């Protein structure tokens, strides 16, 4: 599970953060839409105001994510971020764009 720039087009765009939200919709989907149990990779961030917080807790382009569970009222999601487990609300999870694989 090495980090390979060439294999990950999104990672190449990290130098221009504003470009990360301009990915084509077909290529990426919000993390909140990921089915429980499916894994995906972070492709970029939507401009919904959470990017800085999401990055600080550790979300970054190329990281593997998996939706582990949805919470009791469906609004909170337990996400595996690489080897860590993070609780995010749906609105925050909308800020993470993922590609499957």
């Amino acid at each position, binding site marked *: 599970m090495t*980090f390979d720039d060439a294999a990950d087009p999104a990672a190449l765009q990290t130098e221009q953060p504003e470009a990360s939200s301009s990915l084509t919709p077909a290529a990426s989907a919000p993390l909140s839409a990921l089915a429980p149990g499916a894994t995906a990779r972070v492709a970029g961030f939507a401009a919904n105001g959470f990017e800085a917080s999401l990055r600080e807790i550790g979300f970054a382009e190329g990281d593997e994510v998996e939706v582990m569970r949805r919470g009791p009222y469906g609004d909170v999601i337990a996400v595996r971020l690489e080897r860590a487990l993070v609780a995010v609300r749906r609105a925050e999870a909308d800020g993470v764009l993922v590609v499957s694989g």
Partner: protein
Amino acid sequence: MAADGAKVAAAGRTVRLALVGAPNSGKTTLFNGLTGGRAKVGNYAGVTVESRVGRFATTAGRAVELIDLPGVYGLTARSSDEAVTIEALKGGLDGAEPDALIVVIDACCLRTHLQSALQLKTLGRPMVVAVNMMDLAERDGLELDVAAIEARLGVPVVAVTATRSRGRAAFLDRLDSELSRLDAATAPAEVRPLPQLQKEARAIASAATVREAPFNKATRAVDAVVLHPVAGPAIFFAILFVIFQAVFAWAAPAMDGIEGAFGALGDAVAAATPDGWLRSLIVDGAIAGVGSVLVFLPQILIMFAALYALEASGYMARAAYLADGLMRKAGLNGRALIPLLSGFACAIPGMMAARTMSEERDRLTTILVTPLMTCSARLPVYTLMIAAFIPATPVGPFNLQGIVLFALFLSGILSALIVAAILRRTSLAGPEQPLLMEMPTYKLPTVRDLLATLWDRAGAFVKRAGGLIFATSVLLWFLASYPASDDGVRGSFAGMIGRVLEPVLRPIGFNLEIAIALVPGMAAREVAVASLGTVYALSGDDDAVAAGLTDVLASAWELPTALAFLAWYVFAPMCFATIAVARRETQSWKWTGFMVGYLFVAAYVAAGATYWIARAFVA
């Protein structure tokens, strides 16, 4: 600091090191392991953030002062707590500028935690990175090349297992040689945008990972149940319920022992001293007062031990996740559960834990409702009343006393949620703060950390019993003994004060003794118990202390009065320390006044309603 080329660790000087790291990186375990758990809680002038300061010596005998700072993810402050840590790291807080940093990162999460190590490098302070929880990483099958991290990061990197003495010994050896080499004048790394640092962190992690391992299987399996939408909340309530049962069942033998010891002490002193005011002062004032509070030490320790276990095992963050939906209805955030649950032990750490919240209105709401959580100082009041008035009738595997205690805790929680919901929809309406919270890998709490916590708490409680409670007991003894009259307590100064309050308290079922006990009881909740002990010890029968307050109350009070007294204590803000901390944390007399006001009104209404409803049923 010093001229160029000066070393951090000049001979004969105490080196000041600051522990920095993400929450849950095991900072505190490392702190307790290195310092032996002996710490004093320090405060920075002006900003009063809780930071623990301890001392230890390296293998070569170098004296080190270690500061444990609140956890941070990086150098961007999202809460007042983080702001203080960052300010302290930059050296902006006087008197505590660290000579060097020990940056603690979790071996299991190198990719994410290395990015904060990279950020900290921009501070230009000498630092040593401690890769913690190596044992857990190895157990998972993860193999790391620590030298590779060091080579790429450009600062000393040491592997450590904070929970084991062998894991710390190697760290201490390395620390010694690194400290003697660290340059006081370290060039700050260039500040770069976070995405770039993240990329570098991941490159370092990839280079240092010899063997990758899947996500911890045990954590995954346990979380499949614990985070389950139905089973999860059920487990959470079961855990709380078991804690309350434990508080009653397990503490009983120790409490009987303490009660017996104080009774014997009272008898011995009474036999050894001549009848007179001195004997009365010692036996009725000091021993009856302090003894009736100290007897609750075992219960309070069980409460703190349970909360510690929830926090250290990693369960607390899961509970916050589960509670988010419910808390959201109250306009709060799952994160607010942690301050609120801390409030079960004491409102003060609870209010301070609210500092981790980034939205000011969320934080303020949390502070204002934290006193509704049943703190350990209410336990003496609750358990005294329950033991005196509620029979220990078995109800299934539990008993009625435990169930009543649980109900009292629940009413505290429910009122907190209701008040929060009202505040967040009215004067404290505002944006919601993000949840975004790491849920740490499960681990076994360590005995050393547990003992360090309990030692701190027991010390604080005994100090209060010996100081504040001793003083108020003696003062109350004086007020209740003089001027001497045929009427006993009724004719004393305390009786006079009590009689002024009595007309106000009579409608909610309180008697004169309660009115008298409530006045010193303003200082702290458990003082009311001590005061009742003193008042009844003075009101006549000398066997009162020996027999225990429980039996005295059982025969002196009507059930509706006892229930009203319990209801009063669910709400009443009878604790000077809490009010003072609320003022400090809110920086507002207006909000502090509001908090005290609404709590008193709620206490009065609840006690009154309980009294009249209970009377209707009893009669």
